[in-house]
């Protein structure tokens, strides 16, 4: 469904962030993109919806070539790609409802969005999504009154109300505590399964990636160095992605993941 061919990005400073990356993602697949800081994970997903303009290569979504689109066509294409951000990127002074409805901006006229008179089905869908993530009672709160986990849920609603075919997720858990991180990852994966959405999730927490994604792609200095199952991610492969380090602890932990999370949950409940 999403096809990336020979994608290269060189910044004006001369840094090459991506070196001819090829990637194909079928409908409904959740893919975790791992790699060290500066490997090009953020650049890769921003090249897909052209928040960053790729230098070379092609990106196509359901056969539609995205890299050559004009402004209006690009806007229409962006509606099909929901994006979720590390620092939630909610517009802080707008209400929760306005933030969710901003996901419909590509579908409504300026006048309707300016007067905040969105079509009834959009409002209904917004309430439905907020209810799904457990925040329907917060609709009129301002976004900056919410906690981190709640904000990220609103961010997820904003992406989903676009009715996307693909989710681009940039470090969704980097600003969250371990328990909320898991809840958010679980929510994203459940929603992708419910709606048959494909997703690229940038994440630097290898354990979380292994827990939730069916496919892991490792990026190192702008090149794909691993593409396969979570189970195939051995110490050798991690060294290839991140460099020399003692990886045994990271790999072992995968088995007693659930125990640990319940301990964390208890700790948090106790606090």
């Amino acid at each position, binding site marked *: 469904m999403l096809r990336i061919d020979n994608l290269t990005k060189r910044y004006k400073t001369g840094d090459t962030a991506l070196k001819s990356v090829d990637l194909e993602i079928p409908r409904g697949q959740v893919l975790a993109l791992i790699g060290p800081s500066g490997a090009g994970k953020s650049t890769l997903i921003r090249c897909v919806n052209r928040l960053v303009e790729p230098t070379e290569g092609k990106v196509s979504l359901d056969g539609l070539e995205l890299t050559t689109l004009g402004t209006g066509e690009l806007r229409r294409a962006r509606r099909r790609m929901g*994006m979720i*951000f590390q*620092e939630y990127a*909610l517009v*802080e002074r707008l209400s929760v409802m306005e933030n969710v409805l*901003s996901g419909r*901006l590509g579908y409504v006229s300026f006048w309707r969005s300016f007067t905040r008179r969105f079509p009834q089905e959009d409002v209904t869908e917004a309430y439905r999504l907020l209810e799904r993530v457990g925040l329907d009672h917060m609709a009129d709160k301002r976004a900056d009154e919410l906690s981190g986990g709640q904000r990220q849920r609103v961010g997820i609603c904003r992406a989903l109300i676009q009715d996307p075919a693909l989710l*681009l997720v940039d470090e969704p858990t980097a600003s969250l505590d371990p328990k909320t991180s898991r809840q958010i990852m679980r929510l994203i994966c459940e929603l992708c399964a419910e709606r048959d959405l494909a997703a690229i999730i940038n994440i630097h927490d290898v354990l979380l990636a292994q827990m939730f994604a069916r496919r892991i792609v490792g990026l190192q200095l702008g090149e794909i160095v691993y593409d396969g199952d979570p189970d195939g991610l051995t110490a050798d492969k991690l060294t290839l992605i991140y460099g020399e380090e003692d990886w045994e602890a990271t790999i072992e932990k995968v088995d007693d993941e659930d125990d640990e999370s319940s301990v964390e949950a208890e700790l948090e409940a106790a606090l």
Partner: protein
Amino acid sequence: MSENSAFTRGWKRPPLIASPWLRWGLLIGGMVYLVLAFGTLDVNWDRVSAGLPRAQRFLGSFFPPDFTSRWEDIYIGIFESLWMTVVSTVVGIAVSIPVGLGAARNLSSRPVYLFCRGVLAVSRTFPEIILALFAVKLFGFGPFAGIIALSIATIGFYGKLLAEDIEDMDPVQAEAIKSTGASWLQWLNYSVQPQVMPRMIGLGLYRLDINFRESAVVGIVGGGGIGATLLTSFDRYEFDSAAAILLVIIGIVMLVEYSSGYIRQWVQ
């Protein structure tokens, strides 16, 4: 051994200017200049002492302020000043919004940016009184000239601060709205406007306050408003009426000041 040397090693904050010659040179040069500047200031104490009782008499003639004998003129002047203030603030802000958007580096292309920054620089170069002199020469005496002068000054002030506030906004919020497929206007309305609005409302009220005070100044060079009334009363040596005018101006400025503080708190 290494432990020992770690203890004996001293530390000083690195100086702001690395070269000691330049550092001390600037400091001593500055002091010498200050001493010379104060030395050049030629205070004639005889004239000061002669001026002091005159100042006392002058201030004494302000009292008691006379609101009644020129009340008609004061009333007309104040209302003229007030509507000049409102009109010039509204016109100035309306024009400065597109100019300010153009002058924000993260929003516009290079040529538009340079053009809008140029407009702002020119309108900020001249103080209100000089703008008013020009406007009076162009359009003749009266409040229209004053409104033009105050509007131009408002563009320079408000446009520059708007542009700077937009440049300081959080780019990620803007990116998020862009990624939904929003049009440019929708993007402005949903990501830029909410971020800059509270500060811009505060600055608008502040500018309203400035424009009211400046409306008294532009009146002195023929730009209409309370300034003209004030000048006339000085010319006629009616200092008690002038005092009344000044008290009315002070009262209105304080009123604007307090209400704008209250409104700013409310929109945060």
